[in-house]
């Protein structure tokens, strides 16, 4: 069950961030992650895949795999947003559509970064997560 997959991945991320109790260290790590995130294929860094937050921009591409899972790639023009976007992809990509649609995403909260998920933050992350879920939900409905 890929709900467990998502849960396990969240635990992973939480454990990883548990190493940092200082705010700046945590962001240092997030920046490193941001730098390492495989950028979205330049061919897909288009307006079609753009989610316009008003502070930073996010691109998201989703592909339905034959086995009922969804593969995401994402990018951002701001490195911290990119780190967050990368974490989200790491947790959700490759999971089953239904599991993505219904996932209880608590890891950002647990690592003290939940404020980035606030829709009023305008960094595009909240809209991205919403779009990931919508995509997965639509796919799951078609599969059912």
């Amino acid at each position, binding site marked *: 069950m890929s709900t467990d997959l998502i849960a396990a991945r969240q635990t992973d991320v939480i454990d990883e961030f548990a190493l940092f109790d200082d705010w700046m260290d945590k962001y240092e790590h997030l920046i490193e992650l941001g730098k390492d995130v495989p950028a979205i294929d330049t061919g897909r860094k288009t307006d079609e895949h753009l989610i316009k937050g008003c502070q930073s921009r996010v691109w998201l591409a989703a592909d339905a795999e034959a086995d009922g899972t969804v593969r995401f790639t994402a990018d951002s023009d701001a490195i911290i947003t990119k780190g967050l976007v990368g974490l989200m992809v790491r947790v959700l990509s490759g999971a089953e559509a239904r599991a993505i649609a219904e996932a209880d995403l608590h890891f950002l909260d647990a690592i003290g970064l939940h404020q980035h998920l606030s829709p*009023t933050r*305008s960094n595009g992350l909240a809209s991205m997560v919403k779009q990931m879920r919508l995509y997965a939900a639509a796919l799951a409905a078609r599969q059912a």
Partner: protein
Amino acid sequence: MGRPGLNLYFAERFRLKMANSTLPERIRRDFPILDRSVHGKPLVYLDNAASAQKPLAVIEGQREYLANYHANIHRGAHHLAQLATEAYEGTRGKIADHIGAGSTEEIIFTAGSTDAVNLVTQSWGRANLSAGDTVLVTRMEHHANIVPWQMVCAEKGAEVVPVDVQEDGTLDLEDFARKLERHQPKLVGVVHASNTLGTINPVAELCAAARTAGAVTLVDGSQALPHLTIDVAAIGCDFYVATGHKAYGPTGIGFLWGRRDLLDAMPPWRGGGEMIRSVSFDGTTYNDLPHKFEAGTPHISGGIALGIALDWMNGVGLDTIHAHESALVQHAHQALQTLPGMRIIGTAPEKVGVVSLVVDGLHPYDLGTLLDGQGIAVRTGHHCTEPLMAHFGLESGTLRMSFAAYTTREEIDRAVIALERAMRMLS
């Protein structure tokens, strides 16, 4: 922040006190102003329909915001902006819950009921009314639900038609049905509870009839919010407006609830920051709901404090408040009727805590002034319902006593005694 803590503290105090005392005793200490005196007499505040007093939770919540986490909201990446935004947006959620709205995106913050009606007339009205159209309102509407319609109708060549009010202050339902049929109005505007008469209108019934006749409906809930449980889905209206300051919250903040599809189709009204998606001199695009209708920096402390006021009211319980106020109205009616020449204007079976009166041969302004001298705050005049006053032939208006959760029977008795003295002095 500490605001949630503060609310919990108050909720706790309510629970403890509920058991063994009556409502005003339990809550009066939450209202510091009630301890003051006026002209050397203890204040009896019976002007709640004009504006209610504020509980400590509201006063302290505003203070705490200003002293601890003030910042401009939305779009701020820093911590204070985040705290302020969460608190302010939190109220949007509380309002949505409180009135049974489908989503927070249907709640538009406004400066009050007046501003909310103007938003509807200037956005929906200008887009949907044309020459020959009718807007049907009642003769007991507040000016806030008349004048904005007159203005847009004058512009569009449409007409505002009033539904009659009966002698006891209830709406003339036959006249309503007749005018609905005859005029086929584009919009029906009706006050949920009258600020002058106290009358609670059967809004669900009226909205159902209006909808059947193809009209869009707007309910003015300014006087309902502090007294009644509101459920916009059950009412079945299209727009619902209310104002914070009559419901224990601050002035300058209120809201419009609208049916999502209507709001989505409406053009923005005020332009500026927040309500845009993107601005350029080649073309500007607008934001999604609710921000599309919210231009500029809002009344942040007011928004936060309105949420606290709703929490406070819900902590006390609207059923409790309404039952208490109904008993006060009964009591006031009885006590007042013992005075000579007394005429109560508005004796509908279902009323909120409002009692309007006139005394034969005496001017309400004189009575009000002499009550003030005895520490008793009431309102006199037309209460922004001139057409209603004209209908009842009351050119000088009425004297209005209006009650809140903290009003006591003793206060009403003192007001009646003071009124008697004023009447003696004037005759």
